[in-house]
């Protein structure tokens, strides 16, 4: 019974999906008898099976719906009300099916409301009343028949049935239109349909894994075959190879489903929306037969539905507005899908009003995603991309002002997850089109095989935009800002990083970026370059998950076995993007800065990435993200208590846990969130109650802290937040945190003069620099710094912020150069502006180095280098 019931539920659900689609179609093409016949047949089957399985509630409902549909079949024109009623019944049937699936029986309750509605509607649409003279061809006599039980709601008496049977024309006139050929074709299709079997997805997955193994083994054999000249194996090997390829294709095919399956519910949704919104919407679907992997299909269903709703709700205008704009009253949403390389492209386009650029601008400004100065530099298309920014808008706010872009960030995240991309194009008054590009399958991906530091790695082809070979003289130049390399590609500046360096395996000598190939990669809205030593070829690789011991490495998303049998890592472009630290906002800032002249961008105040968390109190606390090495959530049972201090084993070492204050409890079970701070080989962790969020915000410390461990308070995202002084906690973890460094450093500690107008940065950087083994003196302005040098204060190196009021970093450097004690002083510029103009200007005034403001590692490296230089000189 169970099996029977399960099969019934699956089959009925599928049939109902078809009924949904067909009914909506029928509403628009009432003359098409094929459709209604099809629907009628499906509902009839459902009714019959329900009776057989003893499901009275379903049977009654299906019967009533069937009766009404019978009227349509008899040629009564379908009214919207009637169709709505039938659709509602189908929804109810689905509900019942769902509980049937969960509880193995029909839920209690009655459907009299729907049934009486259906019966009533069917009665009022009686063709006898509608048609003047229905052909009465009844011959013979009525036989008395008695039903031995009262009629169930919705059931017709046998007499009624008999009468209907006789009243029905022997052949509906419309049916004659069909050619016998079409009938034959349909019969064929039906017969083929019966030749399919249901296979559980698990079985297919297993099969796929096995075939993947076979492909790898085949590749290995071929590789061996190539090395050996004896031809004995050649022929059978070739056969094996061909069969394997066919097998792979065949198994892949079993996983493929037409994208139409994901679209099935859409016509119904559009119909309901148009009813609800009072808009007339036509949904066009093209390429429904385009096939893709079912795993991918499942993942894009929801985003697609979401985008469609958006188009109907916000994109299309009301009929009045459309008429006023001189457009046809019926709005159109077009869904297309097609194959393109190893990808499937899906496009959702509407002919509505287009995106409201002004509103997006206002919203982006309000959310602090961009400054007004930057906005002016952005193209319309760049502005439109803000709708994908995380948390860009919430449904409630946007719907009330009838904006656009409800939850598009969610859509984008979903698509990013499967390695896809999304793009938007909008023309005011003409419409919006979203283009989604996703891989056909996730199990086998096309990847570019590259080499870095002697090892091979795979980069998923989907993320790769182009390969660039940069020479000194070519148009694709690499500009260097000391440690940070940027590629000037056409009119864009792209951050560039050497893969071996990101992986931490670079021998210092091979740091020459100019020597390699640049794989220009795109993740979401970010574009960046990965520099590799060599590029081999593109290969279809079978993605295998990383070992659980290695899964935490963000730069890899899996590994694979190549044809020669060796294992290589698959690079995760998302991880690279994170490692580069180019968030979407930073990227925009970079682009804006590159386009801007120096003054304009100098006025742009930079935002700091802050990690928000709670510890000890409900008030949020924050620490600059750049200081945090990792966020961890550890099993609290792993925390050990030794000598009154909490410790945990972390990457083969004991790491001390430090509490912010005594109000923070170290958990004894469950997950314990930690902020890990590392410096060289040492790590400590701050115990927190909860990690709340990562935000980009301007940091103005408004109330200086009188409490140890707090730098002060600031307003972050509209809430008073305590800014934590990490420098206070490091010595608690290791009493010799700073001292140890001193020993490691040079016999005479180099004196650093840190010039920054922001007390926060002075407070943040000073402990970091001290930890790195420097004596730090701080100055709040250029004048103060000059006074310090003038007064004979110790200074071996000067680090200066560039954007400062009155005397900026450039002016300070120029002044220093004229000073007898300052002429030889190495100066390192600190800035968030990374424009070629700023770099050039820095060189001109005599900066020795130029480091991005939040690049702590880069700063320390630059300091080390400059102090070595100073010592040698």
């Amino acid at each position: 019974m169970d099996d029977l019931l399960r099969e019934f539920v699956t089959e009925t659900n599928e049939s109902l999906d078809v009924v949904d689609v067909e009914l909506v179609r029928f509403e628009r093409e009432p003359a098409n008898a094929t459709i209604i016949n099809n629907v009628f047949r499906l509902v009839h089957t459902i009714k019959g099976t329900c009776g057989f399985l003893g499901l009275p509630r379903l049977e009654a409902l299906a019967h009533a719906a069937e009766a009404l549909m019978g009227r349509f079949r008899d040629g009564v024109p379908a009214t919207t009300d009637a169709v709505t009623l039938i659709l509602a019944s189908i929804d109810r049937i689905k509900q019942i099916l769902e509980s049937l699936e969960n509880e193995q029986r029909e839920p209690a309750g009655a459907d009299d409301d729907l049934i009486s509605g259906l019966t009533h509607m069917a009665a009022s649409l009686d063709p006898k009343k509608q048609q003047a003279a229905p052909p009465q061809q009844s011959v013979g006599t009525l036989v008395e028949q008695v039903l031995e039980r009262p009629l169930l709601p919705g059931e017709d008496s046998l007499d009624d049935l008999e009468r209907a049977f006789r009243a029905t024309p022997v052949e509906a006139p419309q049916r004659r239109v069909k050619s016998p050929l079409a009938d034959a074709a349909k019969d064929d299709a039906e017969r083929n349909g019966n030749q399919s079997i249901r296979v559980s997805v698990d079985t297919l997955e297993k099969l796929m894994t096995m075939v993947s193994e076979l492909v790898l083994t085949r590749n290995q054999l071929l590789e061996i075959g190539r090395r050996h000249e004896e031809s004995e194996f050649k022929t059978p090997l070739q056969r094996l190879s061909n069969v394997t390829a066919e097998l792979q294709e065949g198994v892949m095919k079993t996983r493929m489903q037409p994208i139409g399956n994901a679209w099935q519910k859409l016509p119904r949704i559009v119909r309901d929306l148009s009813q609800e919104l009072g808009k007339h919407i036509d949904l066009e679907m093209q390429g429904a037969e385009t096939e893709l992997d079912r795993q991918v299909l499942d993942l894009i269903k929801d985003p697609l539905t979401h985008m469609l709703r958006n188009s109907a709700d916000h994109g299309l205008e009301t009929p009045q507005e459309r008429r006023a704009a001189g457009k046809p009253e019926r709005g159109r949403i077009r869904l297309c899908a097609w194959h393109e390389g190893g990808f499937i492209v899906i496009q959702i386009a509407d002919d509505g009003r287009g995106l409201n650029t002004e509103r997006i601008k206002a919203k982006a400004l309000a959310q602090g995603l961009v400054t007004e100065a930057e906005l002016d530099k952005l193209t319309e298309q760049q502005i439109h991309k803000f709708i994908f920014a995380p948390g860009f808008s919430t449904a409630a706010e946007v719907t009330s002002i009838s904006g656009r872009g409800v939850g598009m960030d969610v859509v984008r995240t979903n698509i990013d997850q499967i390695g896809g991309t999304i793009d938007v194009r909008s023309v005011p008054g003409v419409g919006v089109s979203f283009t989604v590009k996703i891989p056909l399958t996730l199990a086998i991906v096309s990847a570019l095989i590259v080499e870095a530091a002697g090892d091979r790695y795979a980069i998923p082809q989907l993320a790769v935009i182009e390969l660039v070979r940069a020479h000194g003289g070519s148009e694709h130049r690499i500009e260097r800002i000391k440690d940070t390399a940027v590629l000037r590609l056409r009119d864009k500046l792209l951050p560039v990083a050497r893969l071996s360096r990101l992986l931490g395996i670079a021998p210092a000598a091979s740091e020459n970026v100019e020597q390699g190939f640049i794989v220009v990669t795109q993740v979401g809205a970010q574009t960046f370059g990965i520099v590799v030593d060599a590029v081999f070829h593109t290969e279809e690789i079978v993605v295998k998950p990383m070992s659980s011991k290695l899964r935490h490495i963000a730069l890899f998303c899996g590994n694979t076995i190549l044809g020669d049998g060796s294992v290589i890592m698959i690079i995760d472009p998302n991880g690279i993007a994170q490692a580069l630290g180019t968030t979407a906002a930073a990227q925009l800032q970079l682009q804006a800065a590159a386009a801007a002249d120096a003054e304009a961008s100098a006025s742009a105040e930079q935002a700091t990435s802050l990690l928000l968390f709670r510890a000890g109190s409900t008030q949020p606390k924050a620490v600059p993200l750049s200081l945090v090495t990792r966020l961890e959530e550890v099993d609290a049972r792993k925390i050990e208590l030794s000598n009154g201090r909490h410790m945990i084993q972390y990457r083969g070492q004991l790491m001390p846990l430090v509490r912010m204050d005594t109000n923070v409890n170290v958990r004894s079970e469950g997950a314990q969130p930690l902020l890990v701070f590392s410096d060289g080989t040492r790590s400590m962790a701050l115990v927190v109650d909860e990690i709340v969020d990562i935000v980009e915000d301007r940091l103005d410390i408004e109330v200086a802290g009188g409490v140890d461990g707090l730098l002060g308070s600031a307003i972050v995202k509209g809430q008073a937040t305590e800014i934590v002084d990490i420098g206070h906690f490091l010595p608690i973890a290791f009493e010799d945190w700073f001292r140890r460094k001193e020993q490691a450093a040079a016999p005479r500690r180099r004196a650093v003069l840190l010039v920054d107008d922001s007390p926060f940065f002075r407070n943040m950087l000073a402990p970091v620099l001290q930890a790195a083994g420097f004596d730090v003196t701080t100055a709040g302005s250029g004048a103060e710094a000059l006074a310090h040098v003038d007064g004979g204060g110790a200074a071996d190196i000067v680090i200066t912020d560039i954007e400062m009021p009155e005397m900026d970093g450039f002016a300070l450097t120029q002044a220093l150069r004229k000073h007898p004690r300052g002429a030889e002083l190495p100066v390192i510029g600190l800035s968030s502006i990374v424009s070629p103009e700023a770099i050039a200007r820095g060189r001109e005034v005599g900066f020795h180095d130029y480091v991005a403001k939040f690049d702590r590692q880069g700063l320390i490296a630059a300091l080390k280098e400059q102090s070595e230089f100073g010592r040698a000189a």
Partner: protein
Amino acid sequence: MSEAANLREYVTAEIGGELIGMPILRVQDVFIPEGPTRVPLAPPEIAGVLNLRGRIVTLVDMRRRLGLSGGSDKSSLAIGVELRGESYGLLIDAIGEVLKLDEDAREPNPVNLDPRLARVSTGIHRLNDRLLLVLDVDRVLDIGSASMAA
């Protein structure tokens, strides 16, 4: 709880001058690790990954794992074990014989045993001429669990 005879079979191996034993039931095979791929950014105990008959095996540098340094030549053999469906290869210097040892004769770890050894060992067997350290495979493979949780 223990078996009637109370005899247990151990696969023994040399690692950095120490003799270790692992329950034979946990050992899948012993193989020569060929062409391992290093994994950048991996915990120091992970020596790399390699392809063993179509499976990806994670190699554990046992010397580092146990905090041993003796012997400078490269490990040439690996003991294959499994944990939760994943394959691991524990790098050893040399494979020894399979010993049948009386469970009752197993002694607890001496209190002054190096903590890096103590945390993976379940006790010591005294053999005729040397000591055998009994390793717990699960604990040996409990590498970087703090970072794994993330």
